[in-house]
C-alpha cells in the first residue's frame, strides 16, 4: 500500500516506523471523515424524503417513503465501509509490525491479528494486535499520536531569540533560594561559561523551547551570547547546528525546584573529609563524574519539572530510530521528510525511577558543573547519589 508523503523509497526501520505512524494517523482521519459522512448522508436522505413529501403527490409520497426507508441502509453501508477501512489499515499495520519485529528487532514472526477485537466501527484497538512487542508498540504510537505534535521547520526558525536578562534573573532566583553556606559555590558553578544548566534547563525555559529543542535541536538559549548558532539555512532550509540534543528536553518549573536536588547533592558531598571537591575527586573517572539524584532524595514533586520527548521513544532502539528520523527531517528542503512529533510530559509525575542527572568535569580551573537536568530515569551506570550517602 503506498503511503503518500512519507519516505522517498526508504525502507529502514525509521521508514517502517513512519509508515506505521502514518497508517495509524490515516485511520484516525478516515474514521473521523467517514463518521461525519455517514451522519451527513443520513441527514441528506431524510431531507430528500421530507422535500418529496411536501409535494403532496401520491407518486412523490411513495418515493419519499422509499427514500426514507433507504436512510438506515445508507448509514449501515457507511458503517461497514468504516469497519472495512479499519480492517484494511489494521492488516497493513500488522504486516509492517511483523516486518519490524523480524528484520529490525530480531524477534519471531508475529501471531495473527485478532479481527474480532478491533473494536466497533471506526475504532482501532491495540487489543487486536498480538500481545507483547506489537501491542505495546501500537499502544505507544496510538497513545503518543493522540498527544503528539509536530512543529514545522519554518515555525522553529521564526521562534524569537532567548532573553539574556530572563536567564540572568532565573540564575539569581536559584542562587537566592540555596542555603547560604552553598551560595558561593552554586554561583561559581552556574556562572561558569561551560555550564549551561540554567540556560537550557532553567525555569525561564518554556514548553515551546523544549519542543523546539527535542524536535529540531534548537537550543533554548538561542540568540544569546555563547549559545550555539543553530540556524535554518536561508538558501536550502537545512538545519545547521552543533547543539547536541537527545530525544528528550527537560526543565525545572521554578527556582526552588531547580535548587532542591542540587542542595541534596551538596549536603551529601560536603560531608566528605575533603569537602565537595574531595567528594568529586573520589567519584570521578578520568576527570568526569555523572550522578543521579532520585526524585524523593532531591525533594521533587509532580509539577516541579516539565519536558518534551520524541513520540514513541520508549526504548533505546526506538529512540535511535527517532533520532535518525529527526536527522533526516533536518536535511535540505526537497530531500527531507516531515518533522518528527514530540509529547509534553512531566518526568517526575510519570515515572517511578525519575530524578535528576548531574555531571561534573575537571578542568584547568577545577571542578565544573557541566549539566544538570530532570529525567525520567538514570542513564546506565550513572552513580546513584543514594548509594554514596
Amino acid at each position, binding site marked *: 500500500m503506498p503511503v503518500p508523503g512519507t519516505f522517498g523509497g526508504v525502507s529502514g526501520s525509521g521508514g517502517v516506523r513512519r509508515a506505521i505512524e502514518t497508517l495509524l494517523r490515516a485511520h484516525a482521519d478516515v474514521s473521523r471523515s467517514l463518521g461525519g459522512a455517514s451522519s451527513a448522508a443520513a441527514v441528506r436522505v431524510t431531507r430528500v424524503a421530507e422535500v418529496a413529501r411536501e409535494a403532496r403527490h401520491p407518486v412523490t409520497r411513495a418515493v419519499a417513503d422509499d427514500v426514507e426507508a433507504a436512510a438506515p441502509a445508507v448509514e449501515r453501508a457507511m458503517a461497514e465501509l468504516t469497519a472495512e477501512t479499519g480492517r484494511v489499515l489494521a492488516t497493513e499495520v500488522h504486516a509492517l509490525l511483523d516486518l519490524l519485529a523480524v528484520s529490525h528487532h*530480531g*524477534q519471531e514472526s508475529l501471531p495473527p491479528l485478532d479481527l474480532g477485537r478491533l473494536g466497533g466501527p471506526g475504532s482501532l484497538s491495540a487489543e487486536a494486535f498480538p500481545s507483547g512487542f506489537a501491542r505495546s508498540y501500537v499502544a505507544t504510537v496510538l497513545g503518543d499520536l493522540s498527544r503528539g505534535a509536530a512543529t514545522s521547520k519554518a515555525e522553529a526558525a521564526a521562534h524569537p531569540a532567548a532573553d539574556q536578562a530572563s536567564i540572568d534573573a532565573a540564575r539569581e532566583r536559584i542562587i537566592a533560594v540555596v542555603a547560604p553556606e552553598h551560595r558561593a559555590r552554586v554561583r561559581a558553578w552556574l556562572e561558569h561559561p561551560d555550564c549551561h544548566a540554567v540556560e537550557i534547563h532553567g525555569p525561564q525555559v518554556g514548553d515551546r523551547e523544549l519542543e523546539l529543542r527535542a524536535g529540531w535541536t534548537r537550543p533554548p538559549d538561542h540568540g544569546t551570547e555563547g549559545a550555539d548558532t543553530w540556524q535554518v539555512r536561508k538558501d536550502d532550509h537545512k538545519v545547521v547546528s552543533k547543539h*547536541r540534543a537527545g530525544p528528550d528536553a527537560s526543565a525545572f518549573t521554578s527556582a526552588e525546584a531547580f535548587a532542591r536536588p542540587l542542595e541534596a547533592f551538596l549536603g551529601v558531598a560536603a560531608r566528605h573529609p575533603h569537602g565537595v571537591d574531595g567528594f568529586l575527586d573520589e567519584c570521578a573517572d*578520568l576527570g568526569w563524574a*555523572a550522578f543521579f539524584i532520585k526524585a524523593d532524595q532531591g525533594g521533587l514533586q509532580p509539577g516541579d519539572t516539565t519536558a518534551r520527548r520524541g513520540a514513541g521513544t520508549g526504548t*533505546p532502539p526506538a529512540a*535511535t530510530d527517532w*533520532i535518525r528520523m529527526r536527522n533526516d527531517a533536518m536535511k535540505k528542503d526537497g530531500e527531507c521528510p516531515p518533522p518528527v512529533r514530540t509529547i509534553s510530559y512531566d518526568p517526575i509525575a510519570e515515572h517511578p525511577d525519575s530524578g535528576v*542527572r548531574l555531571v561534573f568535569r575537571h578542568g584547568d580551573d577545577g571542578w565544573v558543573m557541566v549539566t544538570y537536568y530532570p529525567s525520567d530515569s538514570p542513564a546506565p551506570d550513572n552513580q546513584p547519589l543514594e548509594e554514596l550517602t
Partner: protein
Amino acid sequence: MIPRSKNFRGLLGGWFSVETHIPGYIEACERVPAWLAEGKQEIIDFRDELAVHIRDSSYPALPSMTQWGTDEWLRDLWFDAFGPDTPPGDPYPVPAADWGTTRLTPYMLHAVDEDDEGSSEGAAAWLAQRDLTAQGVYGAFSHEMIRRPEPADYADHLRRATEAGLREDG
C-alpha cells in the same frame, strides 16, 4: 567477568554515556586514540572489560531490552570508542560493511553532518580512522537501518556462558 568493575561503571555511566551528555560522549570517543597513546590505564582497562562483556553477554540487560539488544548496544559503543576492529573474542562480529550504511551509531547520529559547520571538529579524523566519509554517513540517515536478528544459537551461547559462571541469568 561479573560483576563489572568500578572503573568500568564510572566510564560507561560518565564519559561514555551518550544518554547523559552527548558532547561528553563525542569528546571521549575522539580522545580515545590520545588516551591510549598516553597509556591511560583506565581506558585500557575499560576497553578490555568492554570486550569481555561483549564476548560473554555479561552486561545486565537494560530495562525493557533483551540481552541481545544490550550486547548490540555495547558493540555500537565499541565501534564509536575503539574503532572498526572487532572486539577480541566477539562471537557475533558485525560485518564491516554494515557500519555507517545499515548500522548507525550514536557518534554518527550526533557528531556527523555533511557540512563542517554542523560536524564535530574531531569528526573528520574519527571518520578517517574508520574508513568512512561524512557524505556517506549523512546519506545513510535517509536509508536502511537494519537491526541484526538474534542469532539462532544465541540461547545456547547464553546458557553456556551462564553455566561457565561468566554471566548471571537475568
